[in-house]
């Protein structure tokens, strides 16, 4: 366990039970997942039962109990993106990367996810790699976008 790293995160908060979600978010951002040992420490420090942490970690889409890849691909499946072929973009990515939605490639480079709406509906279909948005990312553009991260 990387205790100093966890301490840095915990030191940003006052250690109250309602700090749970922000603390977990910081851990997720920093580690790319929620390691079990770290959660045990969080439970003690925030005085929150481990059951509650497990509940929260499995309820919210942002959290993962297994490590995510270096790059997070989020394909928008909002209404407009759905109508404009967002589903096919997911299939194309899944086929090219060899992973199902929600999983990470063996080389730990990419995690493929879908999201309810990214809010760039006018440019559907939209996808996001890490913090960068790609508009009108139809199936034929997928290889070009992936190339930028390989």
């Amino acid at each position, binding site marked *: 366990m990387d205790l100093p790293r966890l301490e840095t995160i915990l030191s940003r908060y006052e250690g109250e039970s309602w700090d749970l979600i922000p603390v977990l978010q910081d851990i997720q951002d920093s580690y790319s997942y929620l390691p*079990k040992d770290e959660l045990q420490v969080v439970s003690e420090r925030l005085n929150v*039962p*481990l*059951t*509650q*942490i*497990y*509940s929260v970690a*499995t*309820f919210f889409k942002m959290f993962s*109990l297994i490590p995510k890849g270096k790059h997070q691909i989020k394909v928008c499946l909002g209404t407009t993106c759905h109508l404009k072929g967002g589903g096919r973009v997911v299939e194309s990515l899944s086929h090219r990367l060899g992973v199902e939605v929600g999983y990470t490639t063996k080389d730990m480079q990419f995690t493929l996810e879908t999201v309810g709406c990214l809010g760039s509906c006018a440019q559907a279909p939209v996808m996001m790699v890490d913090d960068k948005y790609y508009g009108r990312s139809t199936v034929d553009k997928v290889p070009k976008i992936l190339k930028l991260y390989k």
Partner: protein
Amino acid sequence: MVWKISDETAFDTLGEEVRLTINGIPIRAPQNQSLLVTARANGFEIPTLCYHRDLPSEGQCRLCVVEIGEHPHTQIVNSCTYPTSPGLVVQTHSEKVMQARRIVLELLLARTPKAKLIQELAAAHGVYESRFKTDDPEELCILCGLCVRTCREVVGVSAISMKGRTPDKQVATPFLEKSPACIGCGSCAFICPTNVIPYTEKNGVRTIWGRDFELQACTVCGNYIEPKYQLEHWAKITGDPVETFFVCKDCR
């Protein structure tokens, strides 16, 4: 603080007595008492699955729904959390209410076709088979959350909780592993209305949630009492020495 509503009080404190009508009959009840408690106290039976008088109501099962207000501005609310107020008009068995209960039971019957309690309750409402889809014919859990609430609120240890949301929501121990917080008391299995939590006792060992608990034998008669962990938990709460609990109820 999470909003809690228990048997006695719908709101923080019960208010003064108010008049309301249930099924056309004038009733007096303390203000802010839950409609469920009020109705039952006055002889109107309302079916429930997730309600228990010693636990905060959260309104999961939706079987206790009642209709409030006057035609045409009526509303369906769950009686276990809805408070009494002056002049409230309540229907516990209107057509709207019965239809909602029938559909809820039909949905639960499809979810847990082998759960005896659900079969009986459904039959009592005229539902003998479900038109809905069964995923797992062996499923028994109705996700009422009584076990989770009992463990947290009554036992006070929180060894189990809900995992995930709709598609794969289930009651689980953290990481689906042996729960370190569990004291093996079996309250979750005891409160479960559909007997879904597996629980065995053999040769002085109780097994629950995948964990074995050594049972303490009574120092007088030798019969098994409860798991050692549980007695230690009692000792911690009461401040008494743990040995106090090594004698069974009958031998005290």
